[in-house]
């Protein structure tokens, strides 16, 4: 009643008065001190009519028992104290220091709980009807965080009055949440529940789930009018044998079975001259003897007897257990479980889509990490263990550029070609200095490049330290693309996907449509023949290797954006990259794409079954790959016939 009155007062009071807060407070001073619910409504309305922040502050302070009055003058002030001896009095209107007084000169105003509730409600109303949108929004947020039955009416009034469409939507949602929880009418609650059945948000489920909370009872003890969920079999996840037995004991339908620890403590209490009930203490290392001794004690009346042969499961088996909803209205629980079923089905589907998108995202990362390798390993049959370190060099290049150029957009745009240049140069240098001497000894390339790999890793550690360095994405890559509450994908991952797509097209173009690509393929297939046709294999090998390494550098910038840049960044990707190339089929860009797709989806798929354990997912994925290679030793997309070579 008061609430409605208050709301009405507010509406009508607003335009009429144009007094200052001080004046109003002075006018109502006696009633404020008295703090009666009956007289408070017009005071609150008057104060809210002032509409200043100080007025809201005043009401909040009133509610929080933070208002005091000076005994001598009767002036109402708010108070701050540092030492609880002297009190600084603050003017309610201006917020300035009035004076300092001792505690004996002032007295606290203590509104009763009814009045505090009223003040709270008025404050909510005030916020929800504030002319400023931010305040209204903050009001709704506060209300959702701490829902109370008393908020329902002001919220409904505010919802009616709200003009802003976005805010109206939020208020509508809040209203339905409060309706579900607090409305007296079953029909209204059911309607509100049903309105959520398309809502995938965590809050919606958070609102509906408590409605279905239930407790398990012995069938005999369930009251007539209880809202019954259904029978429960002991030994299931919902009800363990132990819990069921505890229910029986609580209902005095069974005597408690002592735990091993309880038996031990009773035995201990009855030790007499190294024997317990006639059994030697030394024999107590045997569990059966302990029970015999305990039963002997029970016979002597020193312990509660129990049947050691009956298991708890047997004892429980003769009784029925029933789950009973805490919520008494069946219509509400039915509607809630219905709505939750619908939501869960949709959430399940969305999760699947989300997982698929995660798979695509992971696949594009693997593709990006592996594509450079697909060129050096796949096309040239040179195994480059330092490939991971080229990725790392790319990431650090990005980091260094960001140190020099603070604008993230500019620095990222600069970092990409720079990373390519740095790792291209490193790749060419490595090819010229090391790999070229080892073309006829492929296993030794592995060793030599491994030496380079550990050297590069340690150099990075010496220069940049062991702690992770951030590579910050520009603002326009912050956040996620939100499709619904479940399906969201961060813009960085989308960018990586786009980047890998670009690389796929670029490489297909280079290998299939350019002179370099033609010569590369020629050298791959028959180096001697290619040389005799005027192609310089040395130059081609150098360029190809540089290209593969350069792409690793760009991959490093991309990976660095979402993973921390450390000296071990590359090492984390190297095995997966090799797997990607081998699984996909060596010597083929499409193969790498297929390999990355398979490994990305596979890993996400395994995580789906065991989401808490990504380590296990990787373990099983590698085992799967080892087995997969049994059946397709040349990968998914294999070159056939003699061209595949040995």
């Amino acid at each position, binding site marked *: 009643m008061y609430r409605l009155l208050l709301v009405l007062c507010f509406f009508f009071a607003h335009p009429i008065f144009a007094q200052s807060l001080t004046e109003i407070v002075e006018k109502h001073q006696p009633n404020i001190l008295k703090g009666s619910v009956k007289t408070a409504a017009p005071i609150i309305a008057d104060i809210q009519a002032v509409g200043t922040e100080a007025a809201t502050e005043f009401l909040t302070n009133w509610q929080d028992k933070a208002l005091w009055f000076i005994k001598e003058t009767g002036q109402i002030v708010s108070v701050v104290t540092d030492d609880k001896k002297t009190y600084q009095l603050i003017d309610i209107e201006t917020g300035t220091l009035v004076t300092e007084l001792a505690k004996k000169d002032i007295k606290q105003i203590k509104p009763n709980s009814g009045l505090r509730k009223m003040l709270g409600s008025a404050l909510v109303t005030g916020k929800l009807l504030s002319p400023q949108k931010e305040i209204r929004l903050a009001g709704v947020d506060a209300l959702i965080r701490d829902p109370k039955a008393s908020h329902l009416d002001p919220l409904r009034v505010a919802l009616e009055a709200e003009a802003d469409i976005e805010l109206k939507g939020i208020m509508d949602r809040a209203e339905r949440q409060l309706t579900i929880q607090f409305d007296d009418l079953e029909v209204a609650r059911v309607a509100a529940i049903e309105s959520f059945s398309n809502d995938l948000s965590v809050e919606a489920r958070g609102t509906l789930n408590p409605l279905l909370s239930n407790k398990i009872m012995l069938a005999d003890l369930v009251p007539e009018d209880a809202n019954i969920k259904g029978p429960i079999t002991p030994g299931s996840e919902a009800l363990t044998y132990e819990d069921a037995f505890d229910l029986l004991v609580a209902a005095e339908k069974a005597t408690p079975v002592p735990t091993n620890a309880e038996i031990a403590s009773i*035995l201990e209490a009855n030790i007499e001259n190294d024997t317990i009930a006639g059994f030697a203490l030394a024999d107590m290392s045997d569990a059966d003897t302990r029970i015999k001794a305990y039963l002997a004690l029970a016979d002597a009346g020193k312990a509660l007897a129990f049947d050691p042969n009956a298991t708890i499961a047997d004892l429980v088996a003769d009784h029925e257990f029933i789950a009973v909803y805490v919520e008494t209205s069946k219509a509400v629980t039915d509607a809630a479980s219905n709505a939750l079923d619908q939501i869960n089905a949709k959430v399940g589907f969305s999760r699947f889509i989300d997982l698929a998108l995660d798979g695509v995202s992971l696949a594009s990362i693997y593709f990006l990490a592996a594509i450079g390798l697909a060129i050096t390993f796949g096309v040239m049959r040179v195994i480059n263990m330092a490939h991971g370190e080229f990725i790392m060099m790319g990431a650090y290049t990005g980091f260094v550029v960001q140190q020099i150029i603070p604008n993230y957009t500019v620095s990222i745009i600069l970092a990409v070609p720079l990373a390519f240049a740095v790792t291209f140069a490193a790749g060419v240098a490595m090819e010229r200095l090391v790999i070229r001497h080892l073309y006829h000894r492929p296993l030794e390339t592995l*060793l030599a490049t*491994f*030496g380079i790999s550990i050297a590069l890793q340690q150099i990075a550690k010496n220069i940049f330290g062991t702690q992770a360095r951030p590579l910050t994405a520009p603002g326009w890559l912050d956040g996620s693309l939100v499709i619904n509450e479940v399906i969201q994908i961060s813009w960085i991952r989308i960018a990586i996907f786009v980047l890998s797509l670009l690389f796929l097209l670029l490489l297909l173009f280079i290998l299939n449509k350019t002179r370099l690509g033609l010569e590369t393929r020629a050298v791959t297939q028959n180096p001697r023949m290619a040389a005799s046709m005027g192609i310089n294999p040395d130059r081609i090998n150098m360029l190809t290797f540089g290209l593969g390494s350069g792409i690793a550098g760009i991959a490093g910038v991309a990976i660095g954006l979402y993973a921390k840049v450390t000296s071990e960044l590359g090492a984390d990707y190297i095995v997966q990259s090799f797997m990607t190339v081998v699984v996909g089929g060596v010597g083929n860009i499409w193969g790498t794409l297929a390999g990355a797709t398979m490994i990305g989806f596979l890993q996400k798929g395994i995580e789906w079954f065991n989401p808490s354990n990504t380590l296990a997912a990787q373990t099983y994925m590698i085992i799967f790959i080892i087995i997969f290679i049994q059946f397709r030793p040349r990968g998914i997309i294999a070159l056939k016939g003699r061209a595949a070579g040995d």
Partner: protein
Amino acid sequence: MTGPLTKFLLKYPSVLIFLGFLSLFTIFVTIGSEALGYGFISTSMVKILGKTLCFCLVAIAMDLVWGYCGILSLGHFAFFGLGGYMIGMWLMYARTEIIVTEALAQAALPPTPDEISAAVGTQIFGVVGGSEIPAIWSFAHLFWVQIAFVVLVPALLAFVFGWLAFRSRVTGVYLSILTQAMTLALALYLFQNDSGLRGNNGLSGLQNLPGLDDVDQSVISIWFFIASAFALGFGYLIVKLIVESRLGNVIEGIRDDEARVRFLGYNVEAYKLFIFVLTAIIAGIAGALYYPQAGIINPAEVAPIASIYLAVWVAIGGRGRIYGAVIGAAFVSLVSTYFTGGQAPDIPLGFATIKWVDWWTVLLGLSFVIVTLFAPKGIGGLVDLIAREKTK
């Protein structure tokens, strides 16, 4: 000594030289140790030397599988680690059981077996939030079973993996990558808390032998040192016998031209599998001797990088010659310990100081590139060169 063995040793005096040198070294260290001798070799030094001998043993295995049979395995340190885990399980369980039993003996009632095992479980697995003893620890209280596992578990893994890989004719760098993947899978598995092997905490306190708390570490370290020396000598002899046998010819043939061997009627896959499993067993035994000296084993030890270092040792020492593997492992691991241990003096350059702790790995990596490029036969190759010069 039996007749054929004597003949063998006379035919290959290098084995006698090696065994003689190893014996002298063992006697020297024993005499110099704190426990049994004059004490000019500290206990920690004895442990370092003992561990180095284990490295030499696993390097011999690596040399057999890579240098002689041509399989560049990046997984033999995984077998080494598995051997360590198997013996570590017994060491940890048995010792915890003794401690727990002693603690429970203070209680009024003598403990039941269930109480002991529950207490042991809490003690060992509390660190990963468990208290139950996983099924794979079923035999952890039986010394001889775990000793058998030191051999059987690496052998089984090597057999299953090798059978799959060789059967599908995966060779060369592909095989190397596949072994690396196997190692990574094992390491990742061990890193999990619910692997039953204490996740990344690993197994610890392995330097303490159950029931031998009264025996000083200086004595135990000498026991393990001598045991490692025996294992190394025995392993050297076995591997030498194999490479000088007809089977040695066949596996060298497989290394040089697999197809030719196949068309001569040899089942190449069976030979590779035999060598792969045998070397995995040697690696497992080496690990079982190593980790009680190291005191702790954790999954990081099994990571692929360790196996690659193993290849580095053998390459620097010189492939295809057993003493090369021994020299490589001993030299590189000891020098690495010296430089990364912080004992080496820094080099002031005026504008900067070179700290060996930081730059040793870089130097190692680059020297490895240089060895691969210019001295593919490693240190062993130099020895050959000197030997040839003398005979000229």
